[in-house]
């Protein structure tokens, strides 16, 4: 049975993880690659790196991080931030990313989705949508798409936009509720349901996770295929393996054999 996915997300600035991470047993808590390996071992199903560096001068730093992650991590990972052209997609995949996440550039030039899907396959094109309620108290008023890290309203209806994105070849949708992001009060379940009903591609829920129950709600009531979260994991409040067990105990299909250490394999091959 296909399991629901738990996806930790790292904000990376100039090759360093930002927002404090309070794991023990890390030599360097700011190193995204070491953190990624640690999350893999604890049972993360995928990883997302979001490059938040404003300048484009640091691309080599990002490529280096992606290549080093590929060397050490054997679960899928997505890289987002600053991807503006099919060539940007190609270079990121060449360094080992499994998927790229595009947001502002896709809204400004939707053909980028088509080009990416045709050139490299839908499976690697994640369209990220930052959506904000038009009326905070009334989901029937709909959601508006924002770009540029949530700073720029576009007037575009989020539901219409995800339909177009999937028609153009998006293989997955990363849906962030701007109303909930950073508040740890739970995902916007009405938003998730509306996206789920409008789109045939898998949906990753983002924005608002504060407790295990929030993840449960997004994966059940919200109908999401995966949940993305940052602070709930990074601050060490909830261990991924324990969280997955919690969700599995409540009937959510989870991959629980993941905590097999990769190191177990070593010594069996030579």
């Amino acid at each position, binding site marked *: *049975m*296909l*399991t*629901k*996915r738990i996806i930790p997300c790292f904000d990376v600035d100039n090759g360093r993880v930002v927002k404090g991470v309070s794991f023990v047993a890390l030599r360097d808590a700011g190193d995204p690659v070491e953190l990624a390996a640690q999350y*893999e071992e604890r049972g993360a*199903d995928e990883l997302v790196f979001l490059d938040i560096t404003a300048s484009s001068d640091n691309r080599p730093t990002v490529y280096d991080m992606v*290549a080093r992650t*590929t*060397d050490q991590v*054997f*679960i*899928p990972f997505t890289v987002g931030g600053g991807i503006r052209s099919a060539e940007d997609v190609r270079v990121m*995949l*060449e*360094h*080992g*990313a*499994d998927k790229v996440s595009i947001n502002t550039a896709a809204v400004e030039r939707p053909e980028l989705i088509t080009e990416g899907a*045709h050139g*490299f*396959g*839908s*499976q*690697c094109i994640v369209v990220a949508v930052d959506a904000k309620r038009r009326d905070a108290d009334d989901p029937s008023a709909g959601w508006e798409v924002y770009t540029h890290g949530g700073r720029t309203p576009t007037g575009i209806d989020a539901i219409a936009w995800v339909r177009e994105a999937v028609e153009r070849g998006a*293989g*997955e949708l990363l849906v962030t509720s701007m109303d909930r992001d950073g508040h740890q009060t739970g995902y916007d379940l009405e938003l998730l349901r509306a996206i789920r009903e409008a789109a*045939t*591609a*898998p949906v990753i829920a983002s924005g608002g996770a504060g407790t295990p129950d929030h993840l449960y709600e997004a994966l059940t009531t919200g109908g999401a*295929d*995966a949940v993305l979260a940052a602070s709930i994991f990074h601050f060490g409040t909830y261990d991924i393996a324990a969280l997955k067990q919690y969700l599995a105990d409540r009937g959510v299909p989870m*991959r629980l*054999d*993941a905590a*097999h*250490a*990769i190191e*177990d*394999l070593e010594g*069996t*091959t*030579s």
Partner: protein
Amino acid sequence: MADTVIIDYGAGNLRSVARAVAHAGYDAEIRSDPGAIEGARALILPGVGAAADTMANLRAAGLVDPLREYIDADRPFLGVCMGMQALFDVSEEGGQHACLGLLPGRIVRFPDGLTIPHMGWNTLSIVRPHPVLDGVEDGTYAYFVHSYHPQPDDPALVIAETEYADVFPSIVGRGNLIATQFHPEKSGAAGLRLYANFLRLALDTGSIAPAAAEAAGSA
């Protein structure tokens, strides 16, 4: 001449396959020349993307005949995802596209009404033990991302199955050929073990086939 060759036909995430091979303790060369296939003792055909592009790229690189000859000679071969689908007769992805025709059957789309692609971790039900799956338990999770799946004419080709609404073959094989619909290079420890088994058998014994492996006492 490289013993282990990963075929590069201009598509796909080859770096992660090469890293999985390295992590399993072997060296591989990423090659796009027909001569590399001829000299290989273990051949890996990875791949993502669309069937038509895959076949066009293989033809343009002059790799179709060398691949057919290699597999017809029953030499150790591992296909992954599109590298599995390309082995069958026809793919229905984006029309009807002739593939390599090395395995009888078609590549068909998941039915409407499902979330597509089938993306994420799903279980392998092993229907036929295979030396390449040594240490990979029945029910192990593997990482899938695909919208089409194989429909072999011959049920004897099926080594493992996976359920997504219906049951589809997730590992197929015969003789020294094995191919997975999932991505072992993205399937954590179990996937790395699959690569390690394949390479150990291919390079140490020259055969990954069930009977031959048993005869060699390594199954």
